[in-house]
C-alpha cells in the first residue's frame, strides 16, 4: 500500500451532543457523545435500524448533523469550507453496506479509484492494486466487470477499495455480511494489520461470533443513543498506540 503518512491527531473523530434526523422525521440519533482516539479499533453494534449506517455517514461526510458538533481530524466540520472536504475525505476509507462499486468498471479500476482521485501515478497504482487484489483473493477476477462478481466478491472489492489508500480512519459498514466465517476472519485481519500501522478502525456488524472472537470495544447504539462498551481481552486486541497511551 502507498505509504501515506498518518499525521498525529489528538482525536480522529469527536461527537458532541450530536443529533441526526432525516428530512422532518424523528431523530434517529440523539445526544451522541464520543470520541475516537488515534489508533483505536471498535465494533459498532445495534439492531437493524438502530442508526449504525447513519452514524458512519456523519463520519464519511455523506450527512451533516442536525445538531451538535462533529470534528474530524481535529477540524470542526460545520465550519470547514467545501474546498477542504476532499482532503479530509481522502484520509477516510469506507466500506459501504451496499458496496457502491462502479458497476461498469473492472475490479482493478474500482480498487484503483481512490488512488487515481488522489493523483497517484499509474505505474504505482498498478503495483499496489494488483498486490491487494491478490491478497483479498480476487486475482482471477482482476479484469472482470463488477456485474459479473458474486456478492462476497463484490464485498471484497469494496474492502480493497477502502483500504488501498491506507486511510487514517477506516469505516466499515457490515464488511463481512456476505462471506463465510473463515473469510470474514481473514478480512478482519486485514483491518487489524492496518490498525497496527496506525489506522483508526470502526466496524459496524451484527455478527456475534465476530464480536466475541475479536473482542474489540464496542460502540453500541440503542434507540438512537450511543454507549461505549469495553472490549474483552483477546489476542487480537493488541493495540500499540492505545496501550502506549494507557501507560
Amino acid at each position, binding site marked *: 500500500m502507498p505509504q501515506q503518512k498518518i499525521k498525529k491527531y489528538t482525536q480522529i473523530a469527536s461527537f458532541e451532543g450530536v443529533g441526526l434526523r432525516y428530512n422532518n422525521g424523528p431523530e434517529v440519533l440523539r445526544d451522541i457523545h464520543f470520541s475516537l482516539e488515534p489508533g483505536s479499533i471498535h465494533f459498532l453494534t445495534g439492531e437493524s435500524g438502530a442508526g449504525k449506517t447513519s452514524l458512519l455517514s456523519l463520519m464519511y*461526510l455523506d450527512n451533516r448533523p442536525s445538531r451538535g458538533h462533529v470534528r474530524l481530524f481535529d477540524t470542526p466540520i460545520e465550519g470547514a469550507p467545501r474546498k477542504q472536504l476532499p482532503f479530509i475525505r481522502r484520509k477516510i476509507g469506507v466500506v459501504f453496506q451496499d458496496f457502491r462499486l462502479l458497476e461498469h468498471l473492472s475490479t482493478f479500476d474500482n480498487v484503483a*479509484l481512490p488512488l487515481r*482521485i488522489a493523483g497517484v501515478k499509474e505505474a504505482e497504482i498498478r503495483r499496489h492494486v494488483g498486490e491487494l487484489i491478490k491478497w483479498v483473493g480476487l486475482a482471477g477476477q482482476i479484469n472482470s466487470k463488477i456485474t459479473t462478481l458474486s456478492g462476497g466478491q463484490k464485498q471484497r472489492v469494496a474492502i480493497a477499495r477502502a483500504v488501498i489508500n491506507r486511510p487514517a480512519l477506516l469505516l466499515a459498514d457490515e464488511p463481512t455480511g456476505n462471506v463465510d466465517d473463515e473469510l470474514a476472519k481473514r478480512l478482519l485481519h486485514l483491518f487489524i494489520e492496518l490498525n497496527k500501522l496506525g489506522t483508526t478502525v470502526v466496524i459496524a456488524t451484527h455478527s456475534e461470533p465476530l464480536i466475541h472472537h475479536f473482542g474489540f470495544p464496542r460502540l453500541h447504539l440503542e434507540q438512537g443513543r450511543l454507549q461505549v462498551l469495553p472490549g474483552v481481552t483477546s489476542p487480537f486486541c493488541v493495540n500499540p498506540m492505545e496501550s502506549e497511551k494507557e501507560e
Partner: protein
Amino acid sequence: MLSRKSELPFVYDSSSLFLPWMVMLMVFIAILASAGGMALNSTLHHWNRAISGSLTVQIPTHDRAGVTRGKQVQKDIDRTIEFLLKTPGIEKAEQLSKDQMRKLMDPWLGDLDDFSDLPLPELIDVTLKKDYPVNFEELKEKLEEIVPSASMDMHRVWLERLIALAEGIKKITTLVLLLLILTTSLTVIYSTRSSLAVHKPAIELLHMMGAKDSYICVQYAFRTFRMSLIGGLAGLALALPVIITISTLVAQLKGGFITTAQGQPFFWPVVFSLPFVASFLSVATAYITVSRHLKKFL
C-alpha cells in the same frame, strides 16, 4: 485520461446521444451561413465598385425602328453633359469610353470582343457631390424636356435598395448564428444536467472518495468534447460538398456579378475552425454547468 474508461458510465445516458446531432446541425448551418455572408460581402463590395457614379444617362444610338440616329447622338450627348454640369450637386458627368463600356457589360456579355454591332446606347456616367441632396425625379423630368431621347437610370436608388436588402440578409444570418449558438448551449446544459442527475450516485461516490469538483468537471469536459467534436466534424463533412456545389454553380454564371466566398482569405480557415470553435463552446458550457451544479453537493 482519454485512454481510460470514465468513472461515470456515460454510455448509459440517453441524453448524450442528442448532443452530436445538435452540434452537427449547428456547424453545418454555421458554415453555410458564413459562406453566404462572406459571398454577400464580397458581392456588395464588387457592386459598390462597379459603378463609380450614382447615375447614368443613356442616349440611344438607334431609334425605335432600328435606324441609326447618326450625328444627333453626339449632339444629345453634348447637350446632356452641359445641362448636368450646370445643375447644382453634380460633380462630374462624362461619356463612358468603349473600354469602360466593355468592363461594365462584362458580367452580361462575357468575353464578346467586338460589340459595336449591338445597338447599345451611349452612356454618361454622372458623379454626384457627396451629401448633396438631389431630387432625382425633378432632374429626370428636366433632362427629358431638354434632351427628349435621353433616359436616366437611377442606379443609386436601386443599388441602395439592393444593398439594404443584402445588409438585412447579413443581419438575419448573424441572428440565426447567434440563435444556433444559444440553442446548442442550451442543449449542452440540458444534456449535462440530465446526465448529472442520472449519475448522481456515482458522483456522490467520487466526492466521498475525496474527488474535487474539478475531477468530475474534467470527466464531463472530455465527454462533451468527444461528442461535440464528432458532431462538428460530421457537420463539416456535410457542408463541404454543399458549398463546393453552390460555388461551382455560381462560378458558371461567370463574370462575377455574384462572387463566391472561396476567394476570401479567411474563408477556409473559418470553415475548418468552426467544428473546433463549436466543441470549445460546448466544453466550456458543460464545465461551467457541472461546476455550478456540484456546489450544491455536500
